[in-house]
Structure formats: C-alpha cells, structure tokens
C-alpha cells in the first residue's frame, strides 16, 4: 500500500508540475485577454499579424469574457501580455494592481483602439415601434442589457441612457429616475455583452442595448434582427494596453492593431476605426447628438458615482429591483 501510495503521489505531483511548466511563456508568444465581443475580429487580426515581419512565428493564447471579469482574472493571476477591454476603467483596475503602466494611454489615440456607439437591437418588423430612449420605458416593453457590474458593455449602455436624457435637457435627477424606470423594464442581465446578445437572439425581450459592432455581427450571422442608432447616444471607445513585463512582440501587436491594416480589419468587423485615414473607407453613420464619456465627467468620476458596488447609483437601483 505504501509503495502504491508513494508512486501515486509522485505521479500526481509530476502531472501538476509538468502541466504548469508548459504554461510559462517566453518571447515570441502573446497572451491576449479580451472582452467578449471582439473574438471574431481577433480571429482575423491574429493571422494577419502573424503574416507581418514583426509577427512571424509569434504564437497566441486568447481568452474572452465579460470585460470586468477578465480584468479581475488578470488581477487574480491570469497571465496576460495584451489586454483589450470594453472600457477604460477595466484597464485602470490593472494599473492599480501594478500590472499595467500608468502611462499606458500616452499616445495619440489615448490608448483606444476602436470606437463604436450604443444602439438599439430590435426584432425584424419592430412590432413595438421603438425609436428612442423614451420608448424603452413604455408599458410592456422588455429590455435586455448585460449586468452593469460585470459587463463593460452594460456600463456603456447605462451611460448612454443617462447621457441621452441629459442631452435632451433633463436634469441629473430626472435622468437618474429614467435609469430606475429603465431597469424595471430589464428582463435579463447576463454576465457579458455576448451572453446578453445570445439571450436576445433566443427570443427574450423586445429591444436590446448593445454595441453597434455586436449588432452588425448578429446580422452577419443571419440572425433575424436589425438595429437602429438612437438620435442621442454615446461614443464607445475601447482600450488596448500592454502589461508590464510583456514580451516585445506584444508592443508590435498593439502597433499592428493601430496600423492601417489592423484598423481596416476592425472596420470590416463592425468596429469604427480610430485611425482617420481608415475611417473614410467605411460609412458608419454619424449621429448629431453623439456625446462622449468626457462630457459626462470622465470614467473615473462616473465609475465612482454610478458603479460603485456599495454606494453607486446603479447599486441602489439594482437593490430597488428586488422589491
């Protein structure tokens, strides 16, 4: 019994060590940790990068999930060379954990790699005639959005709703009251934007708040939906950053993402490019009442005021939902 036990113990230990050693990365490999939606885009970007001189022979591991979840996983030890999140605060989480340099966004794009807007995804035919934010809180309208505490996409949605009402001239108090009303119409709060889209496509809800690029993706996959951009909506900006101690190939990859080639691939996948020369190649509609998160005070302020898990406005609204 003893001999067998010792052998078994050694076997388990060896198995564990071998498998852990294999996961260590050296130069020439990039670990990409991203939010849930750009998976298809990166499926094209990575091979394109590997065809360039800088990307030759570089191997990739990829992980996709809800933006907030992924940031937390990196904090917990998920190895990452390049992080691509839905919004800036998730990178800030890593900066606070000393995993990303505080100067990560000191470049001409302020750290952003793609843009988008918040849109309404609707069923073919739009039976409930939803056109604007005020239609979302009409009786009987069911809204789908991800959970704002795990999903970056949901936070964009919330700020789009709030900002739209402010843009229309409503006061801060009225806009918050609208948010409260809106979330009483929410019928599903999935963890990530991708999961929420899945829920909507499976038949739940009348309208979904989503990134424009998610809507475009759904249409491309022949799903019976269409989207409309409300008159007043927020400009979404998605950051990408290199972690401290990342391989040199990681910087080359990020540079590629900003290059004309990379930005064109993003553009073809439904993202609005940040590179001006590439923007002209696509005809993404511009909205007259488009606003940015800066107009609402910037993410640092907004995160604290709206999304603090204990004292934030959304936390209070979510708590009120249970009544």
């Amino acid at each position, binding site marked *: 019994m003893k001999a067998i036990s010792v052998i078994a113990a050694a076997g388990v230990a060896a198995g564990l060590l071998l498998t852990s050693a294999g996961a260590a990365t050296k130069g020439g490999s990039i670990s990409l940790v991203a939010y849930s939606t750009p998976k298809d885009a990166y499926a094209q970007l990575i091979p394109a990068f590997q065809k360039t001189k800088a990307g030759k022979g570089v191997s990739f591991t990829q992980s996709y999930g809800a933006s907030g979840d992924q940031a937390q996983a990196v904090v917990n030890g998920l190895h990452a060379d390049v992080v691509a999140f839905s919004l800036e605060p998730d990178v800030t989480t890593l900066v606070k954990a000393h995993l990303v340099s505080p100067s990560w966004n000191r470049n001409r794009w302020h750290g952003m790699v793609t843009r988008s807007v918040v849109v309404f995804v609707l069923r073919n035919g739009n039976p409930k005639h939803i056109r604007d934010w005020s239609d979302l809180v009409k009786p009987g309208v069911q809204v789908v959005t991800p959970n704002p505490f*795990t999903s970056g996409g949901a936070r964009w949605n919330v700020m789009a709703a709030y900002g739209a009402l402010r843009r229309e001239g409503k006061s801060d108090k009225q806009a918050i009251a609208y948010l409260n009303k809106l979330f009483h119409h929410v019928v599903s709060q999935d963890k990530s934007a991708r999961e929420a889209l899945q*829920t909507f496509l499976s038949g739940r809800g009348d309208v979904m708040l989503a990134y424009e690029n998610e809507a475009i993706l759904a249409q491309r996959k022949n799903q019976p939906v269409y989207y409309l951009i409300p008159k007043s909506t927020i400009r979404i900006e998605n950051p990408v950053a290199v972690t401290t101690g990342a391989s040199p190939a990681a910087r080359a990859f990020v540079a590629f993402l900003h290059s004309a080639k990379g930005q064109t691939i993003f553009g073809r996948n439904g993202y609005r490019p940040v590179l001006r020369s590439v923007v002209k190649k696509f005809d993404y509609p511009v909205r007259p009442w488009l606003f940015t998160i800066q107009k609402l005070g910037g993410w640092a302020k907004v995160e604290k005021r709206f999304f603090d898990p204990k004292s934030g406005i959304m936390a209070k609204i979510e708590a009120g939902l249970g009544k």
Partner: protein
Amino acid sequence: MASNAAAAAVVGSPRPLRVRAPVAQGLATMYLGFVVLLPLAALVWRSTRAGGHGFWAAVSAPEAVAALRLTLVAAVIVAAINAVMGTVLAWVLVRDRFVGQGVVNALIDLPFALPTIVAGLTLVALYGPRSPVGVSVAFTRGAVVLALLFVTLPFVVRTVQPTLLELDVEMEEAAASLGAGRLTVFRRIVLPNLVPAILSGVALAYARAIGEFGSVVLITGNLPFKTEVSSVYIYGQIQSGAPGTAAAVSVLLLAISLAVLLLIGAVRRWAWRHGS
C-alpha cells in the same frame, strides 16, 4: 475457499499486519488535507479576514440574502417533490414489471452522469425561449426548480430502491388479507420502513440542490433578486473582485448545508428507531 488457499501458499516469517500501514495512512491523510482541507482553510480564513462585522455585512447584503432565500426555498420544494416522485419511481422499478424496465432503471442515473451544463442546455432547448412546444420557463423561478429537479432525480430513487427490495412482502399481504385497503397498507406498513431511506435521499438531493450551478446558469437568466441563486451570486462576486464577500457567502452556504444534513441525519436515525 480460494483465498485461504492462496494465503496458505505464501511462505515467509510471520510479520505483524500493521507495520507499513501507518505510512500509507499518513500519506492518504496528507492527500486529503492537501486537496480538501487546505483550500477550505483558505476559504474560511478569507471570509473572516474582515472580522465578524465584515462577514455579516457580506452575507446580509440584499442581493446575497435574496439569492440565499431563493436557493433554500427552491431546494426545499425540490426535496419535497423528489421525496414523492423518487418513491413513486422506486416503487415502479421494484414492484412493477414492464417491457424496458431495465432501460428505465439505467436512465435514472443519467442526471448524475451527464455534465450539468449539458443538462442545462437540454432544458433550455425544450423549455426555453426557442421551445418547439411553446413552453418557456426561462428567466423564471420555475426554471430554477426545473433544473434542480433534473439534477437531483437519482438520489431518492436510489436510496429507496434497496429498502423496497428488502421489505418483506408478507406483512403487506397479511394486512391486505385482513381487509386493509391498499392505501392503508402503504401508509401503515410500507411507508414507515421507507422513511429513513427517503430521508437519506432527500439529504443528498438537498445538498446537491443548494450548490447547483451549471444547470441553472443557462436557463434562469440569473436576474439579481429574481432568479439568481447563491452559487451564481458567489460566481458574480468572484468575478467582480470581491473574493471576501464570495468567501463569506460560501462559508454561510456550507454551514447551512452541513446543518441541514446533520438535522436530516438525526431525524433519519429517529425514524429508523421508531419505524419498524
């Protein structure tokens, strides 16, 4: 006996039976400690790192309380349904005879062998938004009960079956010949003998139901305060960077689970003593 002959065929000086065993036993205990106790210790430690005050704050958060309430209530409902249906199924498998009974018997174990995420997927396919029969329980509390019923199906059946097999049918026949109706026979003679077995199964089903994750995650929509169970809440807290909160709620859930198991165990022993 073959083994006695084998023993007799061995030659060698007599050695006491116990010499090497403590080492194996020590290794085994260390394995148990490393695999199970060490992670649990980290869990309990983390849950109390913010002190009793922090622990209480974490478990009394409104969303946590709502999730716990849903979890416990759903588990009780499921345990009750299983107590009845599990006994019915055991009865049908032991006392009845029909074509395909062996297949049905084997099928009972399917929820155990099937991965929970696959179970959830099958339930979403049939009882979700794209249901071909137009029935959808997705995003409702009913979905929680449905998923839990699926995964806890085998427990009561498998604990009641052996007991039913052992039961002496003669007593029932005697009672029947004395004029007792079928229901009375069941109530007075069979059921008391089954209660301990039913309770064992219920305990297993309850413990399983409280912690279930994979099957509820797809079909319930995980709406906070509405269809979010404790395991999903804990998952959310982990992902939101609040491991302390997650740990506190986990420890509470475990404590409740153990308390209920102990309680059911005590009731079962009482029933066993007073049953037959």
